[in-house]
């Protein structure tokens, strides 16, 4: 019986086990059919070798060999990170006019100030320059959501505690201050001012705005709005009557008329000289009140001024660089500020921050409490009166966190969790390991990319969230963004460990994570190092993912 074609094929390749090969060889001597088959199989193999090895096939020119970029040494990497951190810290110090206190964590409010500022700047840039690509409607909605989100966040926070609200307000105000272009160049021009005498029975939503470059579109609500007013414009003036609440976002907001409800405004400049029956919540770089507020006045900004003519029926809570209170306030004043000058009167006054001055005309009906660093920061004019207690609480120099055992415990927990996360992620997605990002240039690129990704993802999410379909997408991208921020330092740790041990193992990852956690806990520059590492790590994630998708997979070292 003839062997199968398969057997003949293996035989022709000389790969049959010896005993079987002998059998087949014997058979071939007697069988012409099989012997012809084997022969043709062998010629076929030769032909295939010839066809495949045909040199003409590779007519391509030999490209010049580019040796791999020299991996950056750990010392240089560390110096680079520290250098960037120091430069960054100095520049933010100059930009925002205050020093970052040491030992801030990445997620603390002040660093968010920076992020909010950056995000708003970038958003306003995108909004102003994206007119070609994005339709007017989408832009409008994007701006409304952005403003709404900011206001909602502020309002929510303010409900909790005055001081937290003040901090948040300062943060928002700085964000607004740092972005003069924020004031909404929404290109929805048709809807506009409400002339005097005209009455709107419902809630009015208006946004002014001209074509790009034509920023001076102002919005004047001179008529009467029976419902709420939601207004967005470059200059929003409410000179008529709004019976409900006012929610306004703009560059300049002036309220000279009457408002029956609460006023919530975010702008660069807010002036209220009219009458507000509810409370006022304002976030702006300059907030000026010379009108009447029946309930509470809550303001955050660079400068908050309550002029002599102003009346506040409730409490005043202000968080700002400078707060000047010239009027009489029925209830209490809470101020967290760089400087507070009180010329008018109030019941209790609680201050926390830099300097507080009670001018000769100041009258404190209740207690005066100041939380300051030094006693000399409280100046009370002899002519000023304080009916209750005068308490000066010196903020005790907080005992160094480095002296507490719990601090080390939590840092160890941090190392372990990051290590485990890294192990799991790199096990599940080995291609994510930043094995191809090793040269100084690569890391420089990663830093830039990280910056762009950190800023653009939330903005993109907000814009996408404007469409119903986009909401899950936006949520997903925000989750990814947060995950990326957490993963960022693990990426850097992987690199540090790999460079240190010359190979990538669980041990090297642990060492890298430990070093990174130590670095971000360094006094003074730790928080900024943390920020720089975050940029680098997020950039590394983006780069690796990009290479994975467009240039073939990431490589593991052989």
């Amino acid at each position, binding site marked *: 019986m003839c062997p199968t074609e398969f057997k003949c094929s293996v035989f022709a390749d000389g790969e049959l086990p010896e005993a079987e090969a002998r059998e087949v060889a014997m058979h071939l001597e007697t069988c012409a059919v099989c012997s012809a088959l084997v022969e043709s199989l062998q*010629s076929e*193999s030769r032909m295939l070798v010839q066809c495949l090895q045909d040199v003409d096939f*590779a007519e391509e020119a030999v490209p010049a060999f580019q040796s791999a970029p020299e991996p950056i040494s750990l010392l240089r990497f560390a110096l680079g990170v520290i250098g960037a951190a120091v430069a960054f810290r100095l520049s933010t110090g100059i930009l925002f006019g205050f020093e970052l206190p040491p030992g801030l964590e990445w997620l603390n409010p002040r660093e968010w100030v920076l992020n909010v500022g950056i995000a708003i700047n970038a958003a306003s840039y995108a909004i102003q320059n994206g007119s070609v690509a994005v339709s007017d409607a989408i832009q409008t909605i994007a701006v409304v959501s952005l403003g709404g989100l900011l206001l909602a966040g502020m309002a929510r926070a303010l409900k909790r505690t005055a001081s937290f609200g003040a901090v948040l307000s300062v943060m928002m105000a700085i964000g607004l201050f740092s972005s003069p272009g924020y004031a909404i160049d929404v290109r929805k021009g048709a809807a506009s001012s409400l002339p005097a005498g005209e009455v709107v029975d419902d809630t009015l939503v208006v946004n002014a705005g001209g074509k790009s470059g034509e920023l001076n579109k102002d919005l004047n609500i001179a008529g009467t709005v029976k419902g709420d007013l939601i207004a967005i414009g470059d200059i929003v003036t409410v000179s008529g009557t709004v019976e409900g609440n006012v929610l306004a976002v703009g560059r300049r907001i002036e309220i000279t008329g009457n408002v029956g409800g609460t006023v919530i405004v975010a702008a660069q400049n807010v002036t209220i000289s009219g009458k507000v029956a509810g409370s006022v919540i304002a976030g702006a770089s300059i907030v000026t009140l010379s009108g009447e507020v029946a309930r509470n006045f809550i303001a955050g900004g660079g400068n908050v001024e309550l002029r002599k003519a102003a009346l506040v029926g409730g409490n005043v809570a202000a968080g700002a660089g400078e707060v000047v209170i010239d009027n009489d306030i029925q209830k209490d004043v809470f101020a967290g500020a760089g400087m507070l000058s009180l010329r008018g009167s109030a019941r209790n006054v609680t201050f926390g921050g830099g300097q507080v001055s009670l001018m000769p005309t100041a009258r404190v009906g209740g207690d005066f409490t100041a939380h300051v660093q030094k006693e000399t920061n409280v100046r009370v004019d002899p002519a000023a009166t304080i009916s209750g207690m005068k308490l000066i609480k010196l903020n005790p120099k907080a005992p160094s966190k480095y002296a507490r055992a719990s601090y080390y415990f939590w840092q160890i927990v941090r190392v372990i969790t990051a290590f485990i996360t890294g192990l799991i992620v790199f096990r599940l997605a080995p291609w994510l390991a930043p094995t191809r990002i090793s040269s100084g240039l690569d890391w420089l690129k990663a830093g830039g990319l990280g910056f762009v990704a950190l800023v653009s993802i939330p903005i993109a999410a907000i814009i996408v969230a404007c469409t119903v379909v986009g909401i899950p997408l936006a949520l997903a991208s925000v989750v990814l963004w947060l995950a990326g921020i957490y993963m960022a330092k693990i990426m850097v740790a992987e690199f540090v460990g790999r460079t240190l041990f010359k190979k990538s193992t669980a041990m090297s990852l642990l060492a890298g994570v430990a070093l990174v956690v130590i670095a971000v806990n360094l006094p003074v520059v730790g928080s900024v190092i943390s920020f720089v590492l975050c940029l680098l790590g997020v950039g590394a994630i983006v780069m690796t993912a990009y290479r994975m998708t467009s240039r073939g997979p990431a490589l593991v070292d052989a």
Partner: protein
Amino acid sequence: MVAVETLKPSEQDFEDIYKTQYRRVFSLCRYLLNSTERAEDAAHEVFLRVHTKLDSYNPALPLSTWLLKIASNYCIDVLRRRGTEQRIFNLDPGEAFDPPSTGVSPLAEVLAAERGKDVRAALNALSEKYRVPLVLAYYNELDYEQIGEILGVERTQVAVLIFRGKQQLRQRLHDERMRMQGR
């Protein structure tokens, strides 16, 4: 080149090795990855590795064998990473050993392909599972044992893969010829 193959190559020889062997390595990568662009990247990566591993080269082996082995390992790694299926070269349970003949005779079809171009086109149309073993067998000229080592499969499995691969190749060439004649 011969001199290079008998001596342990030093750093200076690398440039020569690169110039003389690049095309060989590139062609292999192109066969295995089935993409010119990816082959360029892969060839570059392979030479980066060769560059760093030059010291570990055993001059007893022919240089080209060593290079092609690095390139094959690298490309198969790439294929594994790209695909969702890690064990791309394993036989399905239904694929019997000692597969039946298909009736399309060997040789004739290959010979009928006037130039290597048709054969290469047919080869590139095969799935990775069959393309890779054929390339290793006929471009690298490795035996079943060596192919099995690279692919991480048994020798007997290599025999089946190559046999089936050749059958598919013949079938494709046959169909193509019928199509051309039918025109």
